[in-house]
């Protein structure tokens, strides 16, 4: 009898403890979009938003988000079931200009970190200034957390979204849990 392959969450093999402020998110559709840094990108109807052009800023619609990672580089997030349709629509919308659109849904995993001590918890491994004045809501950037590279996006005053590559997931999770126990 044929067996069905099932995709495991990167935390499946890790003994996790319940943490009300740290939530590992399920599957998500992700794309890396590269355009010429000097070209004016069109509004992307497939995502329902315009790409953010200001450095380190994210744009969000009801169904998708676009995070500025570098000049001409964005991380696009959408619901997993919409990913194939979004990819086809984006390719149609960007036709005629030089672009690179790569699906990276399974390369990384998302975490949400919240609570009054969220910034303090992140600062245990991330040297950025996470004060609301210098890292406001809607700011996103690639940075480091201890030895792992992460994408950090502030979605609320006390709410962060973290993207990390698959193989770093247990490392990041365990560090954040330890730091959470020490700061609570």
């Amino acid at each position, binding site marked *: 009898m044929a067996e069905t392959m099932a995709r495991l969450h990167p935390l499946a093999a890790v003994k996790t403890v319940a943490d009300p402020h740290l939530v590992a998110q399920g599957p998500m559709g992700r794309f890396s979009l590269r355009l010429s840094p000097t070209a004016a990108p069109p509004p992307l109807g497939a995502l329902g938003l315009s790409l953010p052009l200001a*450095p*380190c800023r994210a744009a969000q619609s009801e169904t998708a988000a676009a995070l500025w*990672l*570098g*000049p001409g*580089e964005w991380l696009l997030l959408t619901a997993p079931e919409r990913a194939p349709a979004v990819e086809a629509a984006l390719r149609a919308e960007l036709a005629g200009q030089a672009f690179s659109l790569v699906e990276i849904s399974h390369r990384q995993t998302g975490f949400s970190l919240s609570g009054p001590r969220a910034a303090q918890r992140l600062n245990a491994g991330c*040297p*950025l200034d996470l004060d609301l004045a210098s890292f406001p809501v809607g700011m996103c*950037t*690639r*940075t*480091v957390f201890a030895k792992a*590279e992460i994408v950090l996006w502030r979605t609320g005053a006390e709410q962060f979204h973290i993207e990390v590559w698959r193989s770093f997931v247990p490392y990041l999770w365990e560090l954040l849990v330890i730091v959470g126990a020490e700061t609570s």
Partner: protein
Amino acid sequence: MLLITCPFCGPRPELEFGYAGEAHVVRAQDPRDVSDSQWTEYLYQRSNVRGVHAERWRHAHGCAQFFNALRDTTTDHFVATYRIGESRPDAAVEAGR
């Protein structure tokens, strides 16, 4: 921690950056046109400045872009950072550090 001002992202911790050697080292358009000694100089000779040094850096764990910086090699103070393609800031900037 030492902060380095990325021309795209603003002041960021040193951990996010990588050093990429001396800036403004010009490669010959056609290496066949230059003599062996000129080519050797391009490949191997660096100014090794004591004082303000123009060098390339990369915001590797950030926007991933290369940029140029003026850094005082005796104090590790970053005098200025500027984008690739821009010319080296003039002496007034260096004097006003």
